């Protein structure tokens, strides 16, 4: 097998990615390519392997076989913190904030990957550390404004309303300066109005030059914002293409609604 020349257009490329848990084939030889600057959606019924695929990309799980190429670099089997440093950030299906930190501190944790101050700088409060700390706080506030929750900056994350917690998670992910943002069901539990606002936020994120890869159940939302869609069922890719094509695909309809007689 010859090495394909690096495709400058694609930011993430999965080649026959497989993840097996004992006898269960959670992700079955899935290949896909995400282009820079697009919104790419991953949909499928419950248990189709969507989150497992995310976990395999971010290094939470080591894929059983297959290859993950991010930004021209093979990252298969890298540690999550290394993947984060290279520029992939994510949010979680069930929100996972640092509950006992303020909103602004949550975002600052994300910024830290890009910080340079060393232990002794902070212990002795050297000017370099102080300037960096001020800058990081300012940047964190800017991100909170960007997602629209600046007024909650000094509240504990756990005390934020549900919708704002989701936004805070996005701000924290953006703080790591990702090139690719993975959103795991960002609209779960949202009202229709909140979903519209979320779509606006995703568009704003795109203008920052960040590619968005999302898992979503809400078909309307997915159809509205994504350029291309991949459908998983039982770990297998059953369809791929622009929303209007995928919507009409027979196998997709079967996977969601069951086989009709």
């Amino acid at each position, binding site marked *: 097998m010859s090495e394909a020349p690096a495709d400058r257009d694609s930011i993430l490329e999965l080649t026959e990615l497989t993840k097996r848990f004992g006898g269960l084939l959670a992700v079955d030889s899935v290949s896909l390519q995400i282009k820079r600057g697009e919104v790419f959606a991953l949909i499928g019924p419950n248990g189709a392997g969507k989150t497992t695929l995310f976990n395999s990309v*971010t*290094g*939470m799980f080591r894929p059983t076989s297959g290859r993950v190429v991010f930004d021209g670099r093979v990252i298969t089997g890298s*540690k*999550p*913190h290394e*993947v*984060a*440093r290279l520029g992939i*950030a*994510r949010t*979680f299906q069930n929100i*996972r*904030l*640092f*509950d*006992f*930190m303020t909103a602004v*501190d949550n975002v*600052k*944790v*994300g910024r*830290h*990957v890009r*910080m340079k*101050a060393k*232990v002794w700088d*902070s*212990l002795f*409060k050297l000017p370099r550390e102080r300037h960096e*700390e001020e800058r990081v706080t300012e940047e964190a506030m800017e991100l909170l404004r960007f997602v629209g929750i600046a007024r909650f900056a000094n509240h504990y994350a756990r005390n934020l309303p549900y919708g704002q917690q989701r936004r805070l998670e996005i701000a*924290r992910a953006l*703080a*790591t300066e990702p090139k690719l943002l993975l959103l795991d069901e960002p609209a779960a539990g949202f009202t229709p109005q909140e979903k519209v606002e979320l779509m606006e936020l995703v568009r704003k994120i795109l203008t920052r030059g960040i590619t968005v890869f999302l898992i979503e159940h809400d078909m309307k939302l997915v159809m509205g914002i994504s350029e291309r869609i991949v459908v998983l069922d039982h770990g297998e890719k059953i369809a791929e293409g622009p929303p209007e094509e995928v919507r009409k695909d027979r196998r997709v309809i079967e996977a969601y609604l069951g086989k009709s007689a």
Partner: protein
Amino acid sequence: MSVGDFGFFVICLTAIVLLAAQAVVHPSEFAQILVFGLADGAIYALVALGYTMVYGIIELINFAHGDVFTLGAYVAAAVMGFFAGTSEDTFSVSNLVALLVTFPAAMLLMGAVNITIERVAYRPLRNAPRLAPLITAIGMSFLLEGIMFVWSGPFTVHVPDLLPHGPGFNTTIGGVFIEFKDVFVVVAAAILVSLLAVFINRSKLGKAMRATAQDRDASQLMGININRTIAATFFIGALLAGAGGVIWGLYFNAITYNLGFRTGLVAFTSAVFGGIGNIPGAALGGMVIGLTAAFSDAYIGSKWTQVVIFGILIGVLVFRPTGLLGMRVPEK
């Protein structure tokens, strides 16, 4: 207020009222016991911090921690032995130099020991059932005690009395006899605890530690290297335990290989009392337990002191498992 909280407050209040009565009737005796209690408490606080930091980040009770503390004292005794010209009779420049070398040497060495323990005994079991690392922790505790036993035998080891002492270095205020080393212990512990507080709250690594304690997976995805962060937690905990060991040696001048068993349990009680996982709680818990031990020694009798302390441990676990200041462990 729950029944448990009520019971807890009634017991605390009773203890405080009884002590206040003593303070009024025999003020100078009371103050003297207070001085002993503060010095003991400062050392317990240093050791308790290591228990609480490790529990906070990986929810493991590091039973080897008390023995790391003891090993710190043994290393201190050995290092001090290298210095010529030190004197136990008067304070000299050589004594000062010996102290300035002993502290960092014992602290850093204990840091290295604790990192090694984490690497070989806990990290491979990180995803195992929680009983497994608990058992290896007890195993490491026995191993360290065994090493000290082989090194110096079962007898009491003398730690040179290098701190300034004797006439000129003690004073009597209102009938209370205070030595230089009483002050030294409390001040040294206060400095170390403040440095730790600044470090945890201000530094990047401190923030990474707090983040890892709250959600390990999410921290990884924020680019935090959790293995390094956990190792750093063990390192810092052991720096404090090492310092605690040196201070204990300088204060009491006598150590035995199994010192860490009892001291470790007392420090662990302090950490639980303050709210396990809670850093200010451990410092406060150490002071309260140190004072309790001193008052119990004086007013109840020293043979009852262990009963009192471990009675507190049981009482806290039954009535108020979150401790005085509350656990800082995220509910999952």
